[in-house]
């Protein structure tokens, strides 16, 4: 079937199968930043924004995206890089495989929460797993990011 979606500000018509998942559709459309770490909505690697809300693209049917607005990390490159610099300065990306999904959640959190506590930050980001870093470095980077920007 055909769907009309806006991806990173660009209106696009895509041909998708009825049972196709958004993660696959986006990767096939050339958005290589979409990673998958599970098939069970546990890891958060595949996070993108749908109408501005962080959403797991591995658990979203592409067919339902008709008329919706999708943002991948490629669409917020400047802001993503600003945070990535802080993350990298901490060493908070190791293999980096979880980073794009994590960054999309961090940027969404920044829009959603004003002046969050450590607990609120951790709570917001809980759905984003990382097997490499042990999370502490990511938290340090997020806190710097929020201070820098607020």
């Amino acid at each position, binding site marked *: 079937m055909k769907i009309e979606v806006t991806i990173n500000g660009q209106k696009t018509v895509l041909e998708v199968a009825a049972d196709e998942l958004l993660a696959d559709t986006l990767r096939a459309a050339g958005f290589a930043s979409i990673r998958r770490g599970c098939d069970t909505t546990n890891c958060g690697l595949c996070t993108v924004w749908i109408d501005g809300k962080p959403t797991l693209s591995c658990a979203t049917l592409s067919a339902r995206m008709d008329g919706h607005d999708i943002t991948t990390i490629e669409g917020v490159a400047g802001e993503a890089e600003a945070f*990535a610099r802080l993350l*990298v300065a901490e060493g908070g*990306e190791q293999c980096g495989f979880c980073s794009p999904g994590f*960054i999309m959640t961090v940027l969404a959190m920044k829009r959603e929460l004003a002046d969050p506590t450590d607990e609120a930050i951790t709570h917001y980001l*809980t759905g984003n797993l990382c097997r490499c870093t042990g999370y502490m*470095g990511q938290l340090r980077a997020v806190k710097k990011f929020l201070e820098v920007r607020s």
Partner: protein
Amino acid sequence: MKLVGKGVPKIDGLAIATGKPLYTEDLAPANALVVKILHSPHASARIKAIDTAVAEGVEGVACVLTHKDVPKVRFTLAGQTYPEPSPYDRLILEDLVRYVGDEVAIVAAVDERTAQRALELIKVDYEVLTPVLDFEQAIGHPSVVHPETDLHCNFDIGHDRLRNIAATHKVEVGDIAAELAASDVVVEETYYTQAQAQAMMETYRAFSYLDHAGRLVVVSSTQIPFHVRRHLARALELPASRIRVIKPRIGGGFGGKQTAVVEIFAAIVTLRTGRPAKIVYERKETFTATNSRHAMRLKVRLGADRGGLIRAIDVQCLSDTGAYGEHAPTVFSVAGEKSLPLYNKARAVRYAGHAVYTNKLPAGAMRGYGATQGCFAVESAVNKLADALGIDPCELRRKNIIRAGEIDIYHNRILGSSSLDRCIERGRELIGWLDKYPRRDLGGKVRAVGMAVTMQGSGIAGIDTASAEVRLNDDGNYTLLLGSTDMGTGSDTILAQMAAEVLETSMDTIIVHAADTDVSPFDTGSYASSTAYVTGMAVVKAAGELREKIIVAAAALMNAAPAEVTFDGSILTGPAGATITLAELAQRSVVGPDRRQLSGYASHGSPVSPPPFVAGFAEVEIDKETGKVELLDYIAVIDCGTVVNPNLARIQAEGGLVQGIGLALYEDVKYDERGALQTNSFMTYKIPSRKDIGTVRVFFEESYEPTGPFGAKSIGEVVNNTPAPAIVHAVRNAIGAWLTRLPLTPEKVYAAMVK
């Protein structure tokens, strides 16, 4: 030093963090066939018949391969230096399946949907056999996991196929029975550690194609490109010269990718069809059909005198290697080798036992590689001994630990460096041991602290070899060629830091290339905590050689003796103020006849494997109503020699500690009664999330390792080991009962509490 010791950001950090297409799957050709595997539903079965005709008839299916279509030469997938100590107990496909998940058929089709459909259309007629599932029953069990007679071992590893013994190992120094008998106090306990999934975020994947010369090119997310080439050559009966292995960015490994799990399947499809092929394992396949940490049972006996000197250490170990023996003998021996030498006042030590086959997921390499298991058992026993003697466990360690300059009884080698005593002291202060030990009862909850120490190694003594090349390019920049794999550890960055330090240049003048077996200098691979130490020394030597050559070349141009020339990294200065810039020298070295591009090339192997050390301290809070253990605070004080890059070392440590916390508290491997892995997703197999870990704090107590690059030792694995024993110790201090089986689920803690 200008760069060594600085928190330089990773050279590929921004690109990987922002999702650039750099990993294996991103690079696969769009027209690659999709390869899928049919996995066995039975723990043990003989394939009586297999019918692929319908599957092959599906439009878009390129090939379906079964045990009838593959070479008949046995091999091991363990990424180890040839001749591998692991048994050659595998075929690509076989008519016998040995665990739920074992490979039955390989399908390749134009797309995922078609491949999946074809898989479902293969008909297999199994004769279901009785499996061996309990590793404590494996030796002498009537069911034999490997009945085949063509299994082969490169060494005598004490393999006894008909008794399900994959490997046997024994080290005994001194008279253990006599020392135990003469001890004032003897403690004894049996400990169990579970299998643990490496659970790297990027699952196993590879793709392959034939190049312009008809050679097989395999691109893989692997820690061991050179070993993969050798495995492929043997298993596919192809000369190694016809194979090229490339590793791009890697989404984590933790030892899992030291076993070549999927490369052969893509490669055989490319060889059979002539077409590009790719394989990407799902998470469920990664849990059920690859490899994990070895589960172990360790029986420890410690003998000590009343003053607290440990005189005898005896460990009897049984290790579950599952259906295949990758890393079975070596993980087994490391469990003793990296835990017994810590207590060097002992007059007798013994470590012995077997690794056994069962009809379960094969075990393989995982961060800590046996040392984690050995450390858990020995440290728990030492804490128990402290109780028995009424001595503070920090004090007991101070009395007994090996010191720099001592000869360790286990290896009979001198210890070059250690600051473990300082690590213990500092950790003790940081956690507030004096105020908190052993417990504070808060009514419904109780808080307590516990501790443990550990050691690992840096590379494999006498075996690991790495080579490195540094070239001076025509424009005055350098290319650093490596054969090691950066799995996210930042090893490419720290190796570039070392080269830049020697050449007195900046990071941006060094181009790092790793790894491609056609181009890269040989490296055994990134495992055994070897990269910073072994490859690092190769880099230091290669950069040093190039530096000399630069000076000699400049001296020749100035008609001076090399000793008269100085080099500050960009300008060479000779007698009477003569100067030449590096850029000019570089340019002149590649122009005209009789010129020669300058490069340094060196190999390094080490006769020793200097141990890094950690002192770990845990503070826990236990809910008396539920048995739930909450980790409040974890402190690790680490001796990894010189800290080459503090930011990257700290993250390495934090990540390893959290994996150790997962082992201690959450990661629970469960099988059903038929031998199927129940914990086959992140729904059921719980790795720690950011809410589960409390605060993890890392500190360094530097030492200087004389055999390491700039005094450095390793850090990758050692950080994995202390959480389990330290948390068990804290739980014991909280509830008064010792737990001996990991993980410490609330049920187990509650049961121990009310007993």
